[in-house]
């Protein structure tokens, strides 16, 4: 609540940086507001724990996730902390190692989604006219197709591997980002400082990516948190459907492989699902926190 006073010099587009100066002051303020937000800080801590768990966790825990280590389908606490799956593999070890693929694929495909979205949206919003109409039709095409289905088809046809999964998720989800970027480009493109830069003879590429893009970043950054969460859910969905990389475990894959034992061994599907849930939740909380920090005025309304 009391952060509102600090936030009054609006960190949004009004203070968007001139090409030469670096906006480190507003950024520091944004960071301050972000960290004072309890749920955002909680999300950050949660995500840190998850990252540590998946990077150094497997080494610390020391159980091979791919080996049969105990009686199949034994419940949590009975020899293993989170029980075993249908072929006697340790669920906790699976969750620790399985998070790697989920997080790598989630992050990489989110980056791809955002880059494609920004490029399409930027060209569309900057050039307008026919370019805009054509690119927006293209975007609409991807918005209309059920994205998961298209990703399933792509991964099936090009056979599942980490690379094809990242590609498939990245190629189907960018429409929203493109629309957002386009709207920001249309708005900022008419502001005085952009006109000034144009009058000073800046080239198109410079105008697009050095003058307009920095000003349109705040909403894109916020939506990139949503995109990352969605990509992780996407990867989990593909893994669940049996379209994960066959060489490595992932959270969705553990759930999919054990779904037939759901009624006898609830832990096999419940625990990996909680891992997915907490990861996406952490990212959502961070995204909300960034939104509040970058756009303090929106807090009153929403």
């Amino acid at each position, binding site marked *: 609540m009391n952060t509102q006073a600090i936030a009054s010099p609006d960190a949004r587009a009004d203070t968007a940086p001139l090409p030469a100066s670096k906006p480190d002051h507003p950024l520091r303020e944004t960071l301050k507001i972000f960290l004072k937000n309890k749920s955002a800080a909680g999300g950050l801590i949660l995500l840190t724990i998850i990252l540590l768990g998946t990077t150094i966790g497997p080494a610390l825990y020391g159980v091979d996730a791919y080996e049969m280590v105990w009686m199949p389908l034994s419940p949590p606490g009975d020899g293993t902390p989170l029980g075993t799956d249908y072929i006697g593999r340790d669920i906790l070890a699976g969750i620790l190692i399985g998070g790697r693929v989920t997080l790598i694929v989630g992050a990489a495909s989110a980056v791809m989604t955002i880059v494609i979205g920004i490029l399409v949206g930027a060209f569309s919003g900057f050039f307008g006219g026919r370019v805009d109409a054509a690119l927006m039709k293209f975007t609409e095409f991807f918005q*209309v197709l059920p994205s998961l289905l298209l990703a*399933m088809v792509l991964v099936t046809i090009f056979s599942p591997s980490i690379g094809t999964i990242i590609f498939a998720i990245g190629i189907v989800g960018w429409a929203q980002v493109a629309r957002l970027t386009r709207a920001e480009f249309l708005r900022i493109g008419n502001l005085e400082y952009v006109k000034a830069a144009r009058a000073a003879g800046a080239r198109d590429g410079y105008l697009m990516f050095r003058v307009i893009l920095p000003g349109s970043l705040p909403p894109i950054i916020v939506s990139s948190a949503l995109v990352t969460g969605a990509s992780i859910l996407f990867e989990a969905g593909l893994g669940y459907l049996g379209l994960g990389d066959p060489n490595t475990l992932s959270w969705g894959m553990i759930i999919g492989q054990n779904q037939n034992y759901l009624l006898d061994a609830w832990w096999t599907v419940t625990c990996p*699902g909680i891992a997915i849930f907490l990861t996406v939740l952490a990212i959502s909380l961070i995204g909300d926190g960034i939104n509040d920090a970058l756009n303090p005025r929106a807090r009153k309304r929403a």
Partner: protein
Amino acid sequence: MDTFQRLSSTFKRLLEAFLLVMAVVVLNFLLIQLAPGDPVEVIVGEMGGASEELMAQLRAQYGLDRPVIEQLGIYVGKVLTGDLGYSYYFNTPVLDLLLQRVPATVLLVMTALFLSVLVGTIAGAVSAKKPDGIGSHIVTIISLVGYSAPVFWIGMMLIILFASMWPIFPVAGMYSIRRPDGFAYYVDILHHLALPAITLATIYVAFYSRLARTSMIEVLGQDYIRTARAKGLSERKVVWKHGLKNGLIPIVTMVGLQFGQLFAGAVLVETVFNWPGLGRLAYESILRRDYPTLLGILLFSAVLVMIANALTDLAYRWIDPRIRKT
């Protein structure tokens, strides 16, 4: 003149929808071309092997020895006449297979959509009346959970809770093993529908309640609402009649845009609940690498989304008279 304009705009929209569907057809063709191995190899694999001569003969029969652009023409022609290929695994023409599965998916998706819009709008409107109240916080928390949990996992949790621990709903499927007759038959389907529909609705309840809240807060702050209050209308009438009608507009827009994603969610939910729709079929055809069926589903879903968008458009005109004029 007015009627003519409306007709021409309807025609334009139909044409756009048609072109979009044709784009999916072309995409399907490109995917077949890009896939490693040609269709004949797949067919021969299903048959259990064949000689080089037979393979060459099959390639000629399917026109695979012709130039790519000619093949595209043949493919488009086939799709336009309703020939979506043949599923070797299910041993049925793909079109028949899809038509069998469409009703179950439409039932599931429409029920989930109805549930999520209804619950989401009410939750959103209630919390918009008191933006800082407890109800508003609950909506925020529920929508965070709905956003973050994988939909297939929510389904499994509901199965564990309401079909196993407290068995009030069936675990999976669409009918009981012994199908009852008459009215009981429909009750049986509804009984099976409950859990999958609730599962699919959860994500969108979260989404629509958030959207409805933002939209209602904005609408309730407008002048005409103050006028309605000033002329002495009951608060209930102000919120639920005057407010909601305008508050619904962004929701209807999103329903149209989100329909494709709802369909994608159906793939996962149908797989969890063994619901005999297109989504479950997609899962089965992935397991069998049954490309004709998979691509047919992609095309069909695009068509369904186009139909849904057209219906949204109608609903939009009904809710917002301003659009009727243009």
